[in-house]
């Protein structure tokens, strides 16, 4: 049986994001704030960004709780998104989604995800894909919905479709 969880996922770098998240705090005066949840896991996070005068993401932060995969992923994503334009951010979110679903495996392309590319192993763990994706889906949804009206605070609740139903018996 070699289908078990890759041992490399919970590495030191990953655990550093879990133990010492740099971007987990309440942001003052965000441009956009959006809430995301995985109802079947209980993973929840509220993601905020501040868009600078140059139209780029100046600050990214999140608050929430859940499994280490969802939280480390949110922290890595926040780090990646600073200085990106909303359009670049949306493209990166889509790339991350393709990576964890195993649709994009080319490391040269995944390099654009920087540290978050280390979550590639999640593509071998179907039950954890929704955990890893939570922050990215929340951000993508927020930017797609909110970027038309910069300056406003678009706080919306989104409910992710339950991809997998754990505990099925």
């Amino acid at each position, binding site marked *: 049986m070699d289908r078990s969880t890759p041992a490399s996922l919970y590495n030191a770098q990953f*655990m550093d994001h879990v133990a010492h998240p740099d971007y987990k705090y309440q942001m003052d005066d965000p441009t956009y704030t959006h809430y995301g949840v995985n109802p079947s*896991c209980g993973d929840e996070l509220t993601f905020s960004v501040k868009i600078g005068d140059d139209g780029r993401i100046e600050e990214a932060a999140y608050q929430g709780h*859940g499994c280490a995969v969802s939280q480390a992923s949110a922290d890595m994503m926040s780090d990646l998104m600073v200085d990106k334009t909303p359009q670049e951010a949306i493209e990166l979110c889509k790339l991350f989604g393709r990576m964890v679903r195993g649709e994009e495996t080319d490391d040269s392309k995944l390099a654009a995800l920087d540290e978050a590319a280390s979550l590639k192993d999640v593509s071998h763990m179907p039950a954890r894909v929704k955990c890893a994706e939570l922050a990215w889906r929340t951000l993508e949804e927020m930017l797609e919905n909110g970027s038309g009206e910069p300056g406003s605070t678009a706080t919306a609740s989104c409910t992710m479709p339950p991809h997998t139903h754990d505990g099925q*018996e």
Partner: protein
Amino acid sequence: MLTTQQLADIEQNPYKADFPLLAQNPDLTFLDSAATAQRPEVVLDAERTFYTTMNANPLRGLYRLSVEATEAIDEARKTIARFIGAVDEKGDPQGNQIVFTRNASESLNLVARTLGPKVVLGPDDEVVISIMEHHSNLIPWQQLCRATGAKLTYLRLDDDFRITPEEVAAKIGPHTKIVSVTQVSNVLGVQNDVKAIAQRAHEVGAYMVVDGAQSVPHVPVNVRDLDCDLMAFSAHKLGGPMGIGVLWGKSEVLDAMPPFLTGGEMIDSVTETDAVWAPVPQKFEAGTQDAAGSFATKAAIDYLASKDMAKLEARERELATYLTDRLNDLPYVDVIGPKDGSRHVSAVAFNVRGVHPHDVASILDMSNVCIRAGHHCAQPLLNYLEVENRATCRASVAFYNDKADIDRLVEGLDKVWSIFGGAVDTKEA
């Protein structure tokens, strides 16, 4: 605590060799039998035997093969009936009280959809379930109550995870029409006194339904002694095939319930405007049934009987006790449920302090240790218990497990803690 002899017993494992998946994967530690059991080879052989020696559509055929297929199902019904004590005064098994479904969930849906209309619930009526129900014994009643305006009342637990006699007396009363309670919790592993609950239900004139999904595979169940009216369980949790569920009911109760699904095989006669139902159990078995699955379910029960069910039960108690003891001894683990291992039927829920159960399960998977993590299809229970993340880990044993399986779980948990111990906020410790 186990005696030295008991510890020596669970170090031995004379059963694993009978289970091909376990025998072929010696490095695999399977501790998720509450979700589904492994199947012994004789069950797989039985499926094949059915298709290679008696395959024909049962019931309607007039030729020998079809008759044999019909007889195979009837024999399976009798074996199942005997296994759960559904026998008459003379001790003869009441096979016609055994209805085949797809799973325990379907059995419970069948009951809610057919007993519900028979009882004719209204806003003054109550259906009583417990807070520890699996969603399959919760949602059918919840939706029935929503549709009829009846009230859904929950039996709650005391601090020791028991449904007290006082709670039963308080919640089951003159307005109660149906009571449906699990005999063993799929999360906490505790066993409820469904006999006492049935007695109270009958005192007030209510029907008593028992979810036996977690009890029938692990403890001796006798429906006559329990004096319940209906019981649901599934074959796959006792080593039979997936896709076979069982509904047992008292004949007078099943006879009075209308059909659930209609169509082929479930009628005596049909006109352009009307139909006459076949007798129970066929009345509840529309369409071609999984005859091979029924035949293989009989093989699963025959296997358990051949190994002496009482002996298997004793071994499972020892394994559950050892499992609970080992978890209690880990300073970073909280058992969710009784700390007394002897109160656990197969399942023990726990959390690693500050670590999400999904992370625990993923890290255990690195060591080929299979446990369940999440809400276990019992979200109201986890909300009620106010468990962090509304989720737990759950390890569950069967007789084919041994001491080494539990030791490997503990080694895996040590690994979880070596990864997370420095990272988590341990203020609750």
